[in-house]
């Protein structure tokens, strides 16, 4: 069985490793790098729990072999928060709207929603549902998750608005 040396960037940090060809990227992230935030669900591309950003785009890390990620830039759920003690606006919105119960699907949902909000600041409900269409949740249900993404979108839009719009009420 062939072994391969790989170098990849995960959450801004460069990692080196030697992997057998058949090792999936999700197993490399979890077992070699101990980044266990990315979850292993179905392991054949159905549930979306293992979603990561691969060169900026959301993909399923169970459907990529680690050797194929040589040279790639990856963001996992651990890379979404601005600092170890904080949550991103999106993560905070999930918390507030009760968008998680058991939490198993949450990393994949966060990655899918984060990718959506990076390219679409004002997603419609249809766009939100399409973006998480490849992610299965078996407990909380999808409504609160959609609500969380809507809340995050409105907050991010507010945060990016010019100061004059934000403080407009003060001048009335």
């Amino acid at each position: 069985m062939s072994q391969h040396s790989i170098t990849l960037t995960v959450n801004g940090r460069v990692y080196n490793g030697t992997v057998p060809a058949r090792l999936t990227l999700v197993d490399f992230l979890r077992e070699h790098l101990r980044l266990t935030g990315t979850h292993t669900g179905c392991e054949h591309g159905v549930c979306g729990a293992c979603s990561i950003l691969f060169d900026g785009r959301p993909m399923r890390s169970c459907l990529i072999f680690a050797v194929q990620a040589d040279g790639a830039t990856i963001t996992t759920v651990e890379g979404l928060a601005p600092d170890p003690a904080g949550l991103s606006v999106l993560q905070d919105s999930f918390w507030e709207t009760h968008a998680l119960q058991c939490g198993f699907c949450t990393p994949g949902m966060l990655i899918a929603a984060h990718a959506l909000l990076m390219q679409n600041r004002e997603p419609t409900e249809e766009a939100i549902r399409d973006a998480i269409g490849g992610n299965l949740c078996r407990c909380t249900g999808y409504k609160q998750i959609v609500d969380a993404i809507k809340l995050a979108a409105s907050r991010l839009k507010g945060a990016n608005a010019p100061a004059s719009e934000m403080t407009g009420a003060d001048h009335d």
Partner: protein
Amino acid sequence: MKAAEFDYARPATIEEACRLLDGAAGDGKIIAGGQTLVPLLVMRLARPTLVIDINRIAALQGIAANDDGVTIQAATRQADVLADATIHERLPLLTKGLRLVGHPQTRNRGTIGGSLANADPSAEICLVARTLDAELTARSSGGTRKLMMSEFCAGAMTTSLTAEECLTAIRFPVWTEKRVGTAFTEMSIRQSDFALVAAACQLVLDDGGVCRKLALGIGGVEASPVRATAAEARLTGTRLEAGDVDAAMDELQQTLQPLADVHASADYRRRVAGALVARVIAEARNDAMRVHA
């Protein structure tokens, strides 16, 4: 489950990929996006000794259009084709089909050629290619071979590619008539799940609203996508009014030989196919009248 052991190679050129296929003596498998192949590997339904990764072969990426066709290199990502303005303008049927392929996460990795080469009976890209009579290019160390989609599909998950051949490009003809209309729809258990039945239509109307050219494709019903050739012949030259379409659909349903599985019986697929083909004909007709009126 985990994949069985295999060796891995990442060639830089198509020639090198073909040499690797030759060296594997029938046990080599090309991987592009891996969205179909990796599940087959981890479930051990496929156990190649060598996996040949063509993702970094630059010649296998890209979209090029000329007057009467668009050529897509095999390892071009589905998401890139879906977002491409030329495809949207020249091959709207492909854009409509691609919206229903998998999910954003799988379209970001999955390729056009990978979907074709795996030939899932319900694959939208295979259906569009069959409906538009796409021409495929396969390379091996022995040379280049061109084949039409009708001769490429050889059954469920089976193509007429040999073990030494690599699919390299797909050429879709572009219809240049004035009033071209397209429609694509499918029925699945959940949105964006595998299609139980999918239907595609591309047609041309003349200024009087008479259908002058018609292509009707059905996926998910038989082992490979099929064309409704009798319905195409019967409806060309009509105004596609409900009576004409209904009669053609009755005839179509009698000729289909649908698959049956745990998700849908043969009779269900037959009836849904008739309904969906009638629907795409109506939508494509409206599309041709609206866009070019």
